[in-house]
């Protein structure tokens, strides 16, 4: 096993099992770090807790819901200064965050009364919102508050109100991934099947493991609607509480982030016989294959092909403009979980960069299997890294850019490595054809920003050249490129709008006749002929 031991972690020898370098001829039978284990004491992890995984990752993107944390106010830290799962109802779930504000006295005397008072106040403050999710936290779990009982009391007192209880306190797993699991299972146990949805198409899907980061869900849903597919629910980005109660009526579960949402897909397959189809919304080839597969499943492949042809023709020249300028740039792909495998191969094949390292904060070994398979030789794979290991890896690998979260990202900037926000994006959405070009543009801007050279000048002692102006990104990126690239009239940098999402909210879609209608028409024609 090609384990890698960080100098900084020699004092924590167990850490060696959590990093590998993929050598020549290595495969998953010889090269896989440990994963999804409790963080080793002494290693300052970058992980979130199980409450965070349940609420801040999966629960809160549901848009028409009062999301309330039963615990100290600090547990609600992550809201719209850190999260970017937008919604088409004016971002209600991001703008308003609720906590019961549990204090020491409640730990002593109990916080159930406080919870009920908070629930009633919240519904009174937002009378149009009739749905609520309540999230357990460490403090209230430890004192044994019966949230289910309080929720039932309120539902009895307020007809028309529906409440979901998520019992995933912070300590309920090694990382946020434990919370993903808990809320998946809680939702299918408590809510799926409790509402019958209206079916408006012959082709009905649940779009699962999609969180509408900067509009990803809306971009993908646009493709589905153009194919005449009804997106019954999205679990959970821009998703509606009541739509998600009707998940059991879909014909197909289309799964994007298997790390956070495969559980509900697997249970829907188990309990309702709905198949699970894993897709990739990132990258031209992967996205094309994904749309094609959904089209094949429903027998409407030609609709997928039409979209693929149109979108590729529109955006390929712009993607290629960036690809020509990103060749060989070294990338550390250090996201939380699924993006290490969503992106690892696609950015290498379609943008020309080289992934020199993957890491995952909360992924399981299964995520590392996918990520390592999609990386080339020499890639360093790290599970649950700590900050010192991250710094040591940057020093060793000298990447041109790092894709990660904002906390390790800011740390990377301090050592002169540009970073892109892999979780919330910089100028997303990154899904879809246009989104993939926006991602390429962000990578280009990060790598070639003149600020990196300017920042290295110490004005207190370095001489400042006054005989020349500032360089531009283009001056840096085009140096050494062949003439046919730099003066190409085909290739072009991104020409889309600043906001590539809002217009989708008012778009109209073709009205595809349903098979029942067509059959009815055919019967009428036959009757007339007869």
């Amino acid at each position, binding site marked *: *096993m090609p384990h890698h031991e960080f100098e900084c972690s020699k004092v924590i020898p167990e850490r060696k099992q959590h990093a590998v370098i993929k050598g020549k001829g290595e*495969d*998953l*039978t*010889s090269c*896989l770090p*440990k994963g*999804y284990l409790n963080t080793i004491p002494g290693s300052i992890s970058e992980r979130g807790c199980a409450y965070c995984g349940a609420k801040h990752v999966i629960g809160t993107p549901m848009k028409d819901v009062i999301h309330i944390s039963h615990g100290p106010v600090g547990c609600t830290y992550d809201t719209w200064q850190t999260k970017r799962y937008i919604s088409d109802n004016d971002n209600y779930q991001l703008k308003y965050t609720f906590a019961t504000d549990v204090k020491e006295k409640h730990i002593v005397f109990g916080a159930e009364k406080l919870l009920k008072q908070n629930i009633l106040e919240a519904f009174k403050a937002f009378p149009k919102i009739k749905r609520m999710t309540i999230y357990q936290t460490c403090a209230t779990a430890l004192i044994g508050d019966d949230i289910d009982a309080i929720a039932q009391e309120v539902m009895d007192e307020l007809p028309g109100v529906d409440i979901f209880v998520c019992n995933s306190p912070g300590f309920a797993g090694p990382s946020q991934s434990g919370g993903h699991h808990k809320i998946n299972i809680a939702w299918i146990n408590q809510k799926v099947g409790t509402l019958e949805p209206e079916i408006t198409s012959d082709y009905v899907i649940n779009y699962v493991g999609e969180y509408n980061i900067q509009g990803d869900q809306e971009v993908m849903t646009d493709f589905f609607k153009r194919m005449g597919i009804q997106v019954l629910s999205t679990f959970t980005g821009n998703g509606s509480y009541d739509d998600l109660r009707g998940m059991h009526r879909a*014909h*197909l579960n289309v799964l994007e982030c*298997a790390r956070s949402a*495969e*559980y509900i897909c*697997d*249970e829907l*397959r*188990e309990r309702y*016989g*709905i*198949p*699970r*189809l*894993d*897709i*990739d919304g990132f990258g031209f*080839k*992967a996205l094309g*294959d994904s749309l*094609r*597969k959904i089209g*094949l*499943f429903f027998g409407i492949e030609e609709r997928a092909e039409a979209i693929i042809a149109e979108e590729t023709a529109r955006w390929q020249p712009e993607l290629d403009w960036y690809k020509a300028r990103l060749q060989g740039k070294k990338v550390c792909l250090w996201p939380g979980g699924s993006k290490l*495998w969503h992106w690892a*191969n696609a950015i290498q094949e379609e943008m020309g960069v080289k992934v020199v390292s993957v890491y995952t904060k909360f992924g*399981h*070994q*299964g995520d590392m*299997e*996918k990520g390592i*398979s*999609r990386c080339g030789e020499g890639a360093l794979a790290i599970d649950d890294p700590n900050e010192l290991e991250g710094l040591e890896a940057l020093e060793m690998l000298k990447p041109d850019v790092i894709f990660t979260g904002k906390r390790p990202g800011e740390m990377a900037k301090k050592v002169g490595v540009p970073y892109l926000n892999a979780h919330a994006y910089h100028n997303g959405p990154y899904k879809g054809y246009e989104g993939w070009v926006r991602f390429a543009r962000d990578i280009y801007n990060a790598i070639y920003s003149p600020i990196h050279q300017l920042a290295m000048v110490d004005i207190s002692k370095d001489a400042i050249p006054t005989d020349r102006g500032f360089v531009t990104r283009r001056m840096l990126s085009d140096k050494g490129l062949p003439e046919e690239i730099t003066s190409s009239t085909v290739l072009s940098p991104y020409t889309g709008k600043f906001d590539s999402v809002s217009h989708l909210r008012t778009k109209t879609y073709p009205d595809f006749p349903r098979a029942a209608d067509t059959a009815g028409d055919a019967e009428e024609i036959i009757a007339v002929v007869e």
Partner: protein
Amino acid sequence: MSVTAKQAKAAERKYQPIYTSNPLADCDPLTQERVGQLENYIMKHCLWQFNSRGWDRRKQNAGILGKTAQLLCGEPVDNPTPLEKCYWVDAVCLDRAYRELFPWITTLPADEIKALIKALHARLDWLTIDGSLNTELIVQNY
């Protein structure tokens, strides 16, 4: 679900090893090279082989590669259930990719294609299940 049904499911999901070493180790170099190409495509571009449990991966590999072999041989494929249709969808994409990227496969007779996909299936089971270092594969629940 009844207790008996639960027990039957647990038994079905209990890890049962098939390969104890790389099944391609004794194959001729040409087969190894060809399987290597087919395997590399799957590992770089597909996700179906990585469902999180070993028993689920076993079903996925058998379902999709079985239908891929049928498609490559020009045989009709039966999809009586939505789950079977889902396997078929991935098999169609794999069949098309193999024909496009590895045109040599279209020159092989049907029995050689089946033998090759059988070797690929064994290799994939080894990589993703029996030889994998992933300790979560033996978990029986999702």
